[in-house]
């Protein structure tokens, strides 16, 4: 074998070949051609990839935001939101509405609207749909162990006789023929004629119209719905009597439309459900050709533009794969987690100029938009052991320790550098834009700010003068008062104690913030006073379970408004039997009384008083530091720049594709 200076020619050829291949690959990878027209444009198809999957797709069962995305495109409501002012309620399937008296609303229905199955939309469909919601009153898809009392039904049941609701009465209903008749006898929907209904509520409220915008109030085709449920339930042949159907359906959310593998055509919306794959979670929607278009055709593309024919929701758990699909033009839009925002948007422009600018050719980042939700740190009192015995160590019963925790983090810094500035700092629980106007009052401010010196002073005081008896807010699990001497909040290096921040796995931003807080607080108190702070990461459901059983010191909580109205904040957040106060075991009589007053003011339509009460409640909560309010979320959407006429509804946090079309960017 010939050699050049000791190296064989074979080796030289091999090295050259390798270099050529490496150079070729490098050129191939670094010099891709400009993106061309994506395939989905030619196919007139919209592909949305995300790491979320649906839970229930029956509008009268679901209460999950991702489900709403599908449901909104398929099922419509009597009233909904104006496009240019997406918090203003306008008649939708209804032509008009009138409030006849404080508990009666008359809706004139639009003519010539068809359901996707070809049947006409009329008063009977409204009567059927709204009563179906009340009668299902359940969520679980498990036919053997149905879970009674659903969030969806609860929304409307609160306007009626609450003794007929499992969730609101606390009593499991019989769900028999007598119960069905009792629900129907409330005469919630009265048919006046084929295109006029009167809705009778039992509790006057200004929340009525916002509640009626929710997907739970979706109007469905009676014939297709009944046929689907009869086939799915194996109930034989329907006798034509709606009551018979309702008796079958009573108390069970296990309907034909939760996992509609073969699709559905039960709504009046712009798209019908073509198929749902329960294994891959892929949902396919197809354009409904006879769609009426919404009021003044606002739910259709501009004249001359072609509506998107097919919408596919694809479950793609890996963000990296989603991003490749978006860049390659196989996905029209993708879900981008907050921690990955700078994979799609220019970091400097966002941090310095507050503009979300895409760094991907052919892709637009829309936003940020405000949404109606708030995140906070819950300080719990009355913490119990798993066997329900009262714990003597009640750290957050002590105002000083609540305040010390609140002073341990710079939330402005955290929002910018940990949360990538993707939220709006909260002054109190009420987010901007909450109805009625004036509910959001930035003047009701938090009483804490980042101050480690103050935190150190507070902890020192709590160490030197520990809380040794129960406060007026504390009581046993069964509600009886706690006598002096049961609480022992003493701690020292010889008697170390832990305070735990619970947070759900995957919530990376919150985990980082809690870790920072724990680090700062441990630096103050760990070795000097024997008070240790730690972060406990658990699945989301586990966190809620422990919180609901009052077994944890604190946790990260968030409330997404069910509909845009201030009452939907005050009750769950401040009433002692509301969701979060009941979890946290706060029981402030003054807030309970104010909640009652707020409901009365709402019933009377006295908005001025309602807003005064709202401010007062937020002020008290801030002063007591019942929550360390963090921020209100925002939304942003990463979509192909070919997608035009883009808009979203902030109340439900979804973008709406009915009026969209493709055009060269």
């Amino acid at each position, binding site marked *: 074998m010939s050699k050049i200076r000791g190296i064989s020619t074979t080796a030289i050829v091999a090295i050259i070949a390798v270099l050529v291949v490496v150079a070729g690959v490098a050129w*191939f*990878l670094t010099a*891709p*051609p400009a*993106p*061309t027209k994506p395939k989905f444009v030619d196919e007139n198809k919209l592909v949305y990839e995300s790491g979320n*999957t*649906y*839970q*229930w797709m029956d509008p009268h069962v679901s*209460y*999950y935001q991702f489900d709403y995305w599908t449901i909104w495109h398929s099922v419509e409501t009597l009233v909904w939101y104006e496009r240019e002012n997406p918090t203003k309620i306008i008649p939708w399937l209804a032509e008009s509405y009138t409030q006849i008296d404080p508990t009666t609303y008359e809706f004139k229905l639009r003519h010539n609207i068809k359901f996707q199955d070809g049947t006409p939309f009329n008063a009977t469909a409204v009567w059927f749909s709204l009563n179906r919601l009340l009668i299902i009153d359940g969520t*679980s*898809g*498990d036919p*053997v*162990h149905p*879970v009674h*009392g659903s*969030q969806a039904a609860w929304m409307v049941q609160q306007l009626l006789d609450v003794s007929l609701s499992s*969730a609101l009465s*606390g009593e*499991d209903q019989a769900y028999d023929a007598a119960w069905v008749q009792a629900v129907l006898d409330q005469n919630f929907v009265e048919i006046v004629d084929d295109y006029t209904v009167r809705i009778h509520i039992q509790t006057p409220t200004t929340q009525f119209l916002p509640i009626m915008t929710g997907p739970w109030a979706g109007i469905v085709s009676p014939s297709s719905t009944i046929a689907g449920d009869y086939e799915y339930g194996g109930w034989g042949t329907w006798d034509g009597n709606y009551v018979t159907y309702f008796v079958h359906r009573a108390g069970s959310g296990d309907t034909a439309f939760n*996992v509609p593998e073969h699709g559905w055509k039960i709504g009046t919306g712009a798209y019908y459900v073509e*198929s749902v794959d*329960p*294994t*891959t979670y*892929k949902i*396919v929607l197809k354009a409904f050709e006879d769609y009426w278009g919404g009021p003044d055709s606002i739910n259709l593309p501009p004249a001359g533009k072609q509506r998107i024919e097919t919408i596919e929701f*694809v*479950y*793609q*758990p*890996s963000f*990296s*794969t989603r991003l*490749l*699909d978006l*860049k*390659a033009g*196989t996905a029209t839009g993708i879900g981008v987690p907050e921690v990955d925002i700078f994979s799609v948007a220019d970091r400097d422009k966002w941090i310095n100029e507050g503009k979300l600018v895409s760094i991907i050719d052919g892709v637009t980042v829309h936003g940020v938009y405000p949404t109606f939700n708030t995140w906070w740190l819950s300080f719990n009192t009355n913490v119990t052991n798993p066997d329900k015995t009262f714990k003597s160590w009640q750290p957050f019963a002590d105002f000083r320790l609540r305040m010390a925790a609140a002073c341990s983090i710079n939330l402005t810094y955290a929002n910018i550098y940990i949360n990538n500035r993707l939220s709006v700092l909260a002054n109190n629980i009420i987010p901007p834009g909450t109805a009625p106007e004036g509910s959001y009052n930035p003047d009701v401010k938090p009483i804490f700010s980042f101050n480690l010196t103050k935190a150190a002073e507070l902890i020192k005081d709590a160490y030197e003068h520990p809380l040794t008896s129960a406060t007026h807010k504390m009581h046993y699990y069964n509600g009886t008062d706690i006598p002096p001497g049961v609480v022992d909040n003493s701690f020292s290096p010889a008697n170390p104690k832990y305070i735990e921040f619970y947070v759900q*796995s*995957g919530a990376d931003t919150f985990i980082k913030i809690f870790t920072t807080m724990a680090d700062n607080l441990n630096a103050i108190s760990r070795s000097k006073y024997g008070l240790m702070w730690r972060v406990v990461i658990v*699945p*989301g*459901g*586990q966190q*809620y*379970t*422990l919180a*609901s*059983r009052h077994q944890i010191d604190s946790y990260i*909580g968030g*409330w997404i408004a*069910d509909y845009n109205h201030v009452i939907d904040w005050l009750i*769950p957040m401040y009433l002692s*039997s509301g*969701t979060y106060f*009941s979890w946290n075991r706060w029981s402030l009589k003054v807030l309970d009384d104010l909640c009652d007053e707020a409901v009365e003011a709402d019933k009377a339509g006295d908005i001025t008083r309602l807003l005064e009460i709202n401010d007062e409640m937020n002020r008290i909560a801030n002063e007591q530091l019942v929550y360390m309010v963090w921020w209100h979320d925002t939304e942003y959407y990463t979509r192909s720049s070919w997608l035009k006429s883009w808009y979203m509804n902030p109340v439900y946090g979804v973008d709406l594709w009915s009026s969209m079309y493709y055009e060269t960017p």
Partner: protein
Amino acid sequence: MKLYEYIIRRLILMIFVLLGISLIVFYLARGFPTGIDPVTPYIHSKMTAEQIEMVRKIHGFDQPLYIQFFYWLRDILQGDWGITGTWANSRPTNVVFFSHFPYTVELSVAATILTVAIGLPLGIISALKNNKLPDHVSRIIALAGYSTPAYWFGFVLQLVFFYYLSLWGLPHLPSSGASGMEGVVSRITGMPVLDGILAGNLGYTLDALAHLILPAFSLSFISMGFLTRIVRAGMLEVLRQDYITLARSKGLTERVVIYRHALKNALIPAVTLTGMFFALLLGGAMITEYVFAWPGVGQISLRAVFQGDSNFLLVYTLVTAAIIVIANLIVDVLYVFLDPRIKY
């Protein structure tokens, strides 16, 4: 002991093994101090404390642990494997598991075929061309295989064979998923390629095959490396044996010596490895299925972990354990055919 007696004995033992596994796993899932509360997957942030307690009562999670175990065991034996949380639409656990399982079977079979089809010849070539260029190349491939993280290799495959090829307008493979033509053929086995073949739909079958290539190759790359090394080592050892020298001295062709005399004996450890690899894959390749959105049990069990769904994880662990025990048994039986000296 006859072979069938041995198999029956092992199958009987398997019942006790599974019972033991179920006991341990049940305790870990439900009773371990930091275990996930079984009610977790049913809970959402808007439930009241009373509603959560109602869920707990309905599902019997308020009972003492040992009673829960017997209830669970009874239900399992009666075919009621419990239900999943809302994350899997509250469907029965066995329905969820077995709707995803065929996808994992298809991926495992494909990955195993690729492993054997590439790893075996590479190992043989490597041994026959010991310390020559083919051996070096083969060893580099093997080393790269078992030292490359599966998730990273998956991304590289996606980047090259999907992203860059599609950007250049060249024929490319899909980035993810098991099929791009869902609903075109009816679900018979749940394995897209097989369903396409059974339906006689060439387009669907080819589309399903295209979706299968990247995840299968990504998975096989790791085991291919191990198999290559094992076969090479086995072959080198066997090729030095006296009976090989004898076979050659009798004038047998090199082909007969290698494939009939040497390879058969060198295969025993390779069969063990392939069998165990296949069994492990049937338990689901979590990361690969996640990266490629492959709807197998690996991906779904990963979701169950994050949701804390002990019902699903119990079933998943039990079935996976059963698969591994059975695979072990099959491998042991195969030894008899590969090496007549082995008796049970």
